[in-house]
């Protein structure tokens, strides 16, 4: 799936990978987020932090021009933080960064906390 835009100079096609890597980048900078998780972790039974190139595995993006696009982020949070706050900050930041980067509205950002990691 890809996002299409038309500018006065021609069409612009943005791939899911591009959106995922920007969203992953933004989410991973958020305080309290210790890593992104694979969205298929249950099925594939991989329970490890994604590496930078693999952010697309932890993010989905769907929707269309009419309804707007929605993004889902799968992640791990640190032990001992207030999860509601971290999640809402992730939503705010991911949405802000995506809208700023691509100039497309993203009305919905879903966050899935896959696990809590204690890092000592």
């Amino acid at each position, binding site marked *: 799936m890809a996002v299409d835009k038309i500018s006065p100079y021609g069409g612009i096609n943005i791939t899911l990978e591009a959106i995922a890597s920007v969203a992953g980048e933004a989410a*991973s*900078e*958020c*305080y*309290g*987020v*210790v*890593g992104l998780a694979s969205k298929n972790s249950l099925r594939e039974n991989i329970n490890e*932090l994604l590496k930078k190139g693999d952010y697309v595995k932890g993010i989905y993006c769907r929707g269309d021009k009419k309804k707007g696009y929605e993004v889902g982020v799968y992640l791990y*949070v*640190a032990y*001992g*933080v*207030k999860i509601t*706050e*971290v999640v809402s*900050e992730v939503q*705010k*930041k991911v949405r*802000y*960064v995506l809208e700023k980067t691509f100039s497309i509205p993203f009305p919905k950002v879903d966050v899935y906390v896959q696990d809590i990691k204690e*890092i*000592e």
Partner: protein
Amino acid sequence: MKTIDGQILKQLFLSGANNLYNHYPEIDQLNVFPVPDGDTGMNMNLTLTSGAKEIQNKNDENIFEIAKCFSKGLLMGARGNSGVITSQIFRGFSQALEGKGEIGAKELASAFVKGKDVAYKAVMRPVEGTILTVIRESSLALENEVKGKKEMSIEDALDFLLAEAKKSLAHTPELLPILKEVGVVDSGGAGLCVVIEGMDKAAHEQFVERSDAGDAAKELSASSVLAAPAYAGAKISEDEEGYGYCTQFILRLGKQEDGKKPFIEKKFQNFLATHGKSLVLVRDEDIVKVHVHTLYPGSMLNYAQNYGEFLTITIENMSEEHENISHGDNATDMASNIERSKKDLIEPKEEPLKDYGLIAVSSGPGLDEMFKELGADYIVSGGQTMNPSSGDFIDAINKVHAKNVFIFPNNSNIVMAASQACDVVADSPTLARVVPSKTIPQGMVSLMQFNPELSPEEIFSAMKGALKTVRSGSVTYAIKDTDIEGVHITKGYYMAMKDGHGIVSCVQDKFKALRDLAKASVDENTSILTIFYGEDVSEEEGKKVGEDLAKLFPDIDLDVRSGGQPIYSFLLGVE
């Protein structure tokens, strides 16, 4: 103090939280990232308040108990990014104190370092130039300092920590480009500094109490942001009681040439509000509609006549009405009257679009007025520290209600927001354009190019062309000691800045700074020198400045006016 126990730590924490409470509105104003919603101060304040509540009634001597409770309170009450990070810092802080009854400077330092460690662990990619940087640099510096000394008192340790934290905070714009762009330090880091300051003060036995100045200041800042002088909606005073005369009039504002005073809505409104009740004041360009209940309608009319001429006047004795008619009917009737008069002027504005609308950003009553004099239809208040949002501009564009709208941001930081607003309204019949004026003098000169006879494109290019003919400068005070571009800056001294050329000089006397600036800006091609003096300069001083400069530059047309702008003592325009 060599050591502290639980009770003293409690005082330190409470004082820190109170200090933050007293200053959070200032911190809100720093907020830029990631979403410019200006709530960091509020969030941190709520977080700290929740921590303070938790230890308020604890009487443990044991320092670990207090720290643990405080950190639990912070965790539960954490709000926003900075709040969560603060809670992590103090979580680490409390972990380091486990098993200790009282602690000295060395333990205090390692507790802060532990706080830093824990805070850093909870994020995979720490962003530098934030609260994290402040706690890291300051705690490590303190640890080093303590190591180097045999003995250190708690007071000294906190003094040192505070100084380091401030140093680190001042450095944050270098690490995070967006801060530099907006010209602020990191808001979360600033919050942490304020907390440490509160703790430090308490250690010096100057426990910081909660003052309600925090709330007052908040109100103030909120109101100054909201103030949109040119087109205010209806304002109803809360008190609907009281009789006297129900006085309603419509005033057409006059021109200064006809001996009328310039209309300043706030002032006008204040006068009416102090002399009457149930005030409703609606302004639409040069028409002001007033509904007010007063005991002395005459004095009110006399006052209003200073500003313009009446179109209609209605005065009814309400005490009589009150006696004759049942109060209930009368009250509802009046309420609906008020509603109607509000609606009349505000809602159905289905008038055809004007050809042109001009929107200018300005701060300070004098400047606002000047812009209006020059023909601006709407003033958006804002400036260096208070940037209006795109939303403010969209509002302004809608209210101006014109086919072609020109926006003068008058500040390089605001140009972006204004352009965004233009993009948003692109679908509407209004065509909005931004004239990228970077300073107030530029905006004024550019605004003067407005000529409704020309086509919009011609006007736009004339306005843009005018920008280049103006050079501007400003005089303001320094808020810290530093060196920039080889000029030594001393805190509290006045800096003369030439836009685009950096700092000309930094001297103790603002008038000398102005002279330096004028000398540096004026050259043989200069014909007009315009100076706006700010709110910190009195009228006499302003006059004196004019005389001084007239001696210095006998060949140049000089125009010295009161701008009333905050922060900048003088703004200078050279043409």
